[in-house]
């Protein structure tokens, strides 16, 4: 069973290391990890995709909460949250295949970030599943290089973030 966890941490040196070190030490599996700034310059958000086969989500959340730099830990439950990923894909594109690839890109709303004589670099933003699908479809054409950011996520606006505790803590 995989879960996505959103962790707000103080933007302090070593905060990310403390999170990843704790995962390594306790043997928790990280599938993807993305970190970046938030609406507050002193707070960073780490989005983690974790495999909870051998360790419970509850235990992982509690261990995260024990870290002094951790402000809030939230599970991004499917249906109640949005998840997105950005991918760059360099695909072999001889003139004969170019039209087909560009049509494929259009279906997925993938932007053509760069176009060379033999290859196209697609830029695709979407749900991780959409990125998976696009990757699968272009692979037969010759996927030369691929980079994915790892998923980032937020709870839906309709649900409203339950940020009261963290806001109070930071006030």
């Amino acid at each position, binding site marked *: 069973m995989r879960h996505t966890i959103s962790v707000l941490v103080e933007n302090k040196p*070593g905060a990310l290391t*403390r999170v990843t070190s704790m995962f390594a030490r306790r043997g928790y599996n990280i599938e993807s990890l993305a970190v970046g700034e938030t609406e507050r310059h002193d707070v960073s958000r780490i989005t983690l995709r974790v495999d909870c086969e051998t360790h419970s989500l509850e*235990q992982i959340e509690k261990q995260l909460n*024990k870290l*002094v730099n951790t*402000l809030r830990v939230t599970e991004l439950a499917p249906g109640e949250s949005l998840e997105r990923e950005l991918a760059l894909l360099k695909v072999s594109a001889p003139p004969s295949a170019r039209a087909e690839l560009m049509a494929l890109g259009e279906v997925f709303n993938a932007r053509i970030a760069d176009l060379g004589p033999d290859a196209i670099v697609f830029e695709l933003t979407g749900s991780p599943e959409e990125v998976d699908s696009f990757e699968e479809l272009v692979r037969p054409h010759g996927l030369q290089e691929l980079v994915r950011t790892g998923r980032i996520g937020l709870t839906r606006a309709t649900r409203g973030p339950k940020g009261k505790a963290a806001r109070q*803590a930071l006030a």
Partner: protein
Amino acid sequence: MTMNGADAVLRSLEAEGVEVMFGLPGGSILPLYDAMARGTTVRHVLARHEQGAGHMAEGYARASGRTGVAVATSGPGATNLVTPIADAWMDSTPLVCITGQVRSFLIGTDAFQECDITGITIPIVKHSWLVQDVNDIPHVIKAAFHVAGTGRCGPVLVDIPRDVQEAELEFSYPDEVDLPGWKPPRRGHPRQIKAAAEAIAAAERPILYVGGGVLNAHATDELLEVAEVGHLPVVTTLMAKSGFPESHELHVGWPGMHGPKWSNYALNKADVVVAVGARFDDRVTGKLSAFAPGATIVHLDVDAAEISKIRHADVPVVGPLKPILATLAKALATSVVPGRTDAWLRQISEWREEFPLRYSAEPRSSDTVPMLKPQKVLEQLQELTAGRDDVVWTTGVGQHQMWAMQYILCDRPRTFISSGGLGTMGYGIPAAIGAKAARPDATVICIDGDGCFQMTSQELATAALEDLPIVVVIVNNGYLGMVRQWQDMFFEERFSQIKLTHSLPDYAALARAYGALGFTAETEEELEEALVEAIASGRTCVVDARVDPREHCFPMIPAGAAAVDMVEFDESEVPVV
């Protein structure tokens, strides 16, 4: 007031009420030592090795109930603190370590005595700080003590580059900490405490399984009240030893790998196990699937992450133990049916009579000269100190430690100090020195092994010169005894790299070289004479008790076996070597 960073560290320690710090100077921490020379109310105890300083700070913390402070320089000084930090992490001992770091502009250049100590220690500290701005020093020291001593206690590290110690700041000590992410629970949930009381009151065979958390929480009085009000038997883990009076009728021993069989029976055959600041360590549970099968688990702990980490908690209560236990005692007072646990307590007494601690006091028939039994050393120590409330014990790690757990009875909190989770050999001597600094009135006795002794014996110089006299009793079997026992029992007697010899070094002569009194004992008479003199001397003493290396520590739960399937001492199986 304008001062430099080093002075600010000392003013901050003074503001925290620190009495004593343990350390050893070096290049990157020179400004702090220079500030000490200018004057401070904090006593500095000069160790001979930074590991010693760290364990002294731990011993001080455990004996006093306050936060210990250790100081070291950068690089090797800091790495020598890693073992005490790991030890404090495993045993939840509040510890503030202050290390010097190379000058800021040298960090990352592989400068002389540079090492990334905050990086190295990340997995074994609650938190750490690399101070980059001198103005942060008061806030960081305040936060360091706050984090070390609140919630579940543990070690923190403050790494201060030399130029930051030398830079100037306008000093004022903050009243509040600025730690938005550190929110230890303030109280247990009343509904959960009520549920705990109901589970206990409804139990037929309840037991309190007490861990070191009760000592860290200063909750021993409340624990006693819960036990007495509920008429509940109590087992204390190695870390909780002395947390409940051991001559009390409700104390039913110590669970785990070398606990008495009756204690393990009591814990494993209970229908409600109330874990109090304990963490279901593998040395206590034995084979987890066979641990207290079917029992309802009530788990009281300040650390939410311990709940259901190892064993599912049916009734979790998260929060500080002192108020939780006080509330629980009140709830039990109105709900417990008098006499309900009588039959259960009788059953435990019967097990106690059926399975006492046993060893052969008789010399082996093949021995021409009878050898002193190691268990006898512990029995004599217990006899000689029985009834005294001013004795503090520390131990190393191994057979002697387990025998100390079995034979020494402690009635007062914080009088048994041992390395549990990490199992750090060499802990005993420096921890004893730290305990003596905390309890100058007490007789501090380190029960050590010959292997352990040789890991930290240089600190005898510290004990002698700093006027922190301790009595070290070496249960000297000439071997790495616990390893010998395992090789004997589980590796078909293939002894491998364990022989130390009884007489090299000559421990009594070594003691004298350090200005201490040295005794060698090979018979019970010599032993008693030496112990009496050593304990009465008021000086640092080493008693070298040369004992039979063939003795195993029994009973024992073999690794991976169920706790109730203990291997016991069997006279018929004593090998004639």
